[in-house]
């Protein structure tokens, strides 16, 4: 513990983040080997990984860039359906499931990034509440577009349409996305291991970004936009960068999530999901990456763990959320932070006296 304290704050965060991912993986593997894990919890493993990635990537927008986004599930949706189209198209070409999943995630990341640019360019001109409301609207727009999206494949290739009428496939054709009915019969190729690998990749990218020239620029924009401009940082550029990276990662999480279920519909990725992920981020602490990981993992498992107390389940969940919110705003946490700040001040005064 003492060694951990001696590290620089950024290195310490990195160690905690990768450590958490490793511990999570080992504990779950041990529990599976020991038969300590029930089926419903087992089914939660991939969603937990997907939500961790969602929370970490949303933290990049909300905590590191400092702009409230309420449409993060929209990018997850884009990634989920892009991933489904890719995996089902490549089913015959690439027999290896992990390779197929990896390719699907890459395509999903690109699609979600493109969606991120399309949404980000107009949205990031706004500030504060206005920005939040417009991201919410864009999240709903994405959901509604996917809801009327028909994609099928036949001998002549992929076919797209936003209308059910007149959408016909050639002989031997197969529907992939069937409008509001969504997708059914998905081959479940997401595994817990692939989830953890993606979590580590996400951490690698996000933590690297934070500890770099670009990350410093993003945080400078968050802390003081006018000052950031005054030292030559293009605020538009770095806001968009953070937003697009965040969207791309959410897209990958979408593929991971979708490939864990046999049926996926567009309405799964609605406003509620965006808010749920935002709750993980806020409770984990804005800008605190490992906080987001714990927040996502605990709050995804909690409703399952509380199943024995049936009727009081959601009540307890709500009480816990309120308690954490109170703690986050409370004097206890403030006092803890003040103490740390005071120590630095004291040290400073001492060193000045010593120097003078």
């Amino acid at each position, binding site marked *: 513990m003492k060694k951990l304290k001696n590290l*620089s*704050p950024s290195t310490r965060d990195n160690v905690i983040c990768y450590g958490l991912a490793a511990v999570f993986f080992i504990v779950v593997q041990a529990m599976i080997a020991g038969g300590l894990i029930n089926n419903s919890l087992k089914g939660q493993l991939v969603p937990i990984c997907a939500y961790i990635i969602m929370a970490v990537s949303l933290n990049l927008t909300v905590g590191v860039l400092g702009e409230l986004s309420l449409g993060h599930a929209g990018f997850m949706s884009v990634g989920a359906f892009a991933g489904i189209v890719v995996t089902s198209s490549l089913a015959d070409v690439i027999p290896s499931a992990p390779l197929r999943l990896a390719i699907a995630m890459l395509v999903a990341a690109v699609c979600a990034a493109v969606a991120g640019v399309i949404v980000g360019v107009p949205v990031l001109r706004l500030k504060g509440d206005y920005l939040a409301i417009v991201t919410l609207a864009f999240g709903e727009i994405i959901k509604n577009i996917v809801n009327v999206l028909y994609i099928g494949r036949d001998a002549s290739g992929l076919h797209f349409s936003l209308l059910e009428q007149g959408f016909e496939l050639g002989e031997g054709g197969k529907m992939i996305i069937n409008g509001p009915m969504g997708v059914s019969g998905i081959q479940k190729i997401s595994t817990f291991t692939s989830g953890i690998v993606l979590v580590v990749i996400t951490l690698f*990218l996000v933590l*690297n*970004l934070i*500890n*770099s*020239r*670009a*990350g*410093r*620029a993003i*945080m*400078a924009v*968050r*802390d*003081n936009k*006018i*000052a*950031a*401009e*005054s*030292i*030559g*940082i*293009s*605020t538009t550029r770095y806001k968009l*960068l953070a937003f697009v*990276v965040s969207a791309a990662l959410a897209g990958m999480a979408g593929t991971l999530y979708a490939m864990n279920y046999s049926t996926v519909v567009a309405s799964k990725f609605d406003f509620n999901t965006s808010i749920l992920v935002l709750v993980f981020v806020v409770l984990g602490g804005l*800008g605190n990456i490992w906080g987001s990981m714990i927040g996502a993992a605990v709050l995804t498992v909690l409703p399952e763990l509380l199943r024995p107390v049936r009727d009081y389940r959601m009540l307890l969940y709500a009480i816990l959320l309120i308690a954490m919110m109170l703690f986050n705003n409370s004097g206890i946490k403030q006092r803890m932070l003040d103490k740390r*700040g005071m120590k*630095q*001040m004291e040290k*400073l005064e001492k*060193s000045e006296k010593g120097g003078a």
Partner: protein
Amino acid sequence: MAMLEVTELGISFGGLRAVDELSMKIEEGGLVGLIGPNGAGKTTVFNMLTGVYRPTDGGIRLDGENLIGKKPHEICQMGVARTFQNIRLFPKLTVLDNVKAGLHNKITYTLAESLFHLGSYRKKETQMNEKALDILKVFDLDGMADYKAANLPYGKQRKLEIARALATEPKLLLLDEPAAGMNPNETAELMETIQLVRSKFGVTILLIEHDMKLVSGICEYLYVLNFGRELAEGTPAEVLSNPEVVTAYLGE
């Protein structure tokens, strides 16, 4: 040719004429003061020089290059850096990172290198750290490099803001009331720092200040602004004995 040439600069906010027909010439290496009573439009002039506001009339040229219509970050890249009247640091970043943010366009590497920490990442970051510490040393802040900027005492925050501006390697440094809120001892120390900055970094300085001791102590030339118009200009001795200037400051 003067380094900074401001010709008949003016700006209106609705019906309010905040600055009108202001002309200034600052030679390379100069240390010039811009003074005037509260509300005279001094900070507005800084905001026009740095692209925060777009002037309604007139021209601004830095070494012959037009600055009007350029964005703030572009003007910074052309060689103008500034500090703010109400300190604007990056409070959640460390002291070192504040200065490293100032080096943003001076030591660069690509986005891919940022995301994967490959290529010249390590080399460039080390360079940045060394350079930033060198600058902090000038301000005697190198011992506090790891502290959050928000935890520094007021006087040191002012110094850090100057350090960050210098990291952008400006030709022209604009200081907006650097001595605001400082006691006489701190002000005296600041005067030394400003002189040191000029000789060590070779920058031209234009500063806004109310502290007449500081202004008459270090500035070589003064412009006096009143109600957005130039009231007087000249050496500190000339300007401060000008009866119109005295009236503007003290009243009839």
